C-alpha cells in the first residue's frame, strides 16, 4: 500500500513538473510578440515595428528560440512613453518668417547697398541680388528690427510678411530621427550576432537604408533649423523719381546742347 502511495505521489510530482516547465517559455514568447505588434499601432514606430517583425522572424527561424525577441522588443516601450510627455507639455511654436517689400526711393542702388550692409551688421548675409532686388537672410531675433530700418529707406509700396509654422514637421522629424537612430543601433547589434552570411547581408541592407533615412531627416532638420534661425527678407527697390514725376519739378539748366543727349539721339 505504502509502495502504491509512493508510486502515485512520484507520478503526480513528475507530471506537475513536466507541465509547468514546458508552458512558461511559450507564454513568454507570446507576450513579447504581442507587445511588439502593439507598438506598431503608434505612427512614429511604424518602421520600427516593421523592421522588428522582419528581423526577429528571421532570427527566430534561424535560432529557433525567443531569447532575442524578448531582449530586442523591450526598447519599443520607452519610445511610446517618451512620446506622452511631449504631447502633454505646451509646445513652443517653431515658425519660419519671410518678408517681401517693395520700396520706392530716390537712390535705389544706394538703398540696396544700405539694406545689405545693415543685414551684415546684424550678422545676416546676402542671399541673392539683382539690378533692383536684394534678398538677405537676417537672424530671426532681429527680423522686426531689420524691417523697421528698411522701411525708413523710402516709401513702402507693398509689404508682405509670411509665417510658416513648422512645429509639427519639426517634432515629427525629431521623433523619426530618434527612432531611426535607435533602430540603427539595434541593427548594428544584431549584425554582430548574425550567424550566417544571408542574415548579415539582410541586416546590412537594412542598416544602409536606415543610415540613408537618418541623413535625409538630418538634412531636412538642418534646413528647417536654418530657416527658423534666419528669416528671409526680399526687398525690391524702385525709383521714386520716375513714379512720382519728381523730374518735372527740377529746374532745367540753360544748356540746350544737353537736350541732344540720351539713347534716342544715339539711335536716330
Amino acid at each position, binding site marked *: 500500500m505504502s509502495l502504491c502511495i509512493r508510486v502515485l505521489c512520484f507520478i503526480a510530482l513528475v507530471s506537475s513538473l513536466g507541465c509547468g516547465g514546458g508552458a512558461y517559455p511559450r507564454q513568454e514568447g507570446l507576450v513579447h510578440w504581442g507587445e511588439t505588434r502593439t507598438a506598431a499601432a503608434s505612427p512614429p514606430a511604424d518602421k520600427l515595428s516593421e523592421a522588428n517583425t522582419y528581423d526577429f522572424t528571421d532570427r527566430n527561424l534561424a535560432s529557433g528560440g525567443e531569447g532575442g525577441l524578448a531582449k530586442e522588443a523591450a526598447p519599443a516601450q520607452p519610445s511610446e512613453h517618451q512620446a506622452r510627455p511631449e504631447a502633454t507639455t505646451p509646445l513652443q511654436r517653431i515658425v519660419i518668417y519671410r518678408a517681401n517689400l517693395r520700396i520706392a526711393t530716390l*537712390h*535705389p*542702388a544706394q538703398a540696396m547697398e544700405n539694406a545689405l550692409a545693415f543685414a551684415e551688421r546684424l550678422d545676416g548675409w546676402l542671399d541673392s541680388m539683382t*539690378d533692383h532686388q536684394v534678398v538677405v537672410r537676417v537672424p530671426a531675433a532681429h527680423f522686426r528690427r531689420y524691417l523697421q530700418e528698411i522701411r525708413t529707406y523710402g516709401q513702402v509700396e507693398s509689404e508682405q510678411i509670411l509665417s510658416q509654422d513648422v512645429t509639427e514637421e519639426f517634432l515629427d522629424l525629431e521623433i523619426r530621427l530618434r527612432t531611426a537612430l535607435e533602430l540603427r543601433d539595434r541593427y548594428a547589434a544584431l549584425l554582430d550576432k548574425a550567424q550566417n552570411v544571408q542574415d548579415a547581408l539582410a541586416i546590412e541592407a537594412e542598416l544602409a537604408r536606415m543610415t540613408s533615412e537618418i541623413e535625409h531627416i538630418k538634412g531636412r532638420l538642418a534646413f528647417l533649423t536654418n530657416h527658423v534661425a534666419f528669416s528671409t527678407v526680399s526687398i525690391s527697390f524702385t*525709383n521714386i*523719381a*520716375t513714379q512720382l514725376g*519728381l*523730374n518735372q519739378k*527740377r529746374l*532745367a*539748366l540753360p*544748356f540746350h*546742347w*544737353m*537736350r*541732344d*543727349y*540720351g*539713347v*534716342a*539721339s*544715339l*539711335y*536716330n
Partner: protein
Amino acid sequence: MRCLILCLILFISQFIACQSPATPSWRVTTPPGFVAIPSQNLRTANAVYKAVAADGAVIVMRIQRQQPEGDLAFWAAALENELRFQRNYELIDQDDVMTQDGPARVLYFRTGYDDEAFRYTLAVFVAQDTVVTIEAAAPLTHYDHHSLAITDTIRSLSR
C-alpha cells in the same frame, strides 16, 4: 562787287569755323566687335565719332565748347540732372575712370527706349575749353557683353 562777295564768303567761312564744335584732335580706340562710322555719315548732334556693334550697341563721342567754363564735377552733375530729372533716366552707378588725358566721370543709367530696357553710359571729360563726352547704349540684355569694350573705349580717350 567782287570784293564784297569775297568778303562775304570769307566771313561765312570764318563764322562756320567758329561755330563748329568739332575738334578733330580727340581720339578713341574702336573696340573689338564695333565698327566706326565714317565721319561724313555722322548725324548725331556734335558727334565726332560713332561706332556700332552688330547687335545694336552704339558708342558716340561728342565735343562741346564750354559756355560758361565749368569743372568736371559741374558738367557731370549738370548732365546727370538733365538725364535723371528731365528724362527719367535711372542712375544705377557712377565711377571715376582715368583716360589717357586725365580723369573722367562715368555715369551709368538705365532707361526705356522703343518699348525696350536700355543701359546708357555717359563718360564726361573736361578739358580747358571743351566738354568731351563718350556715350554708349545697348539693350539691357546685350549690355554686359559690351561693358568691358565700353570701358576700354573711355580709357582710350586721348588728344
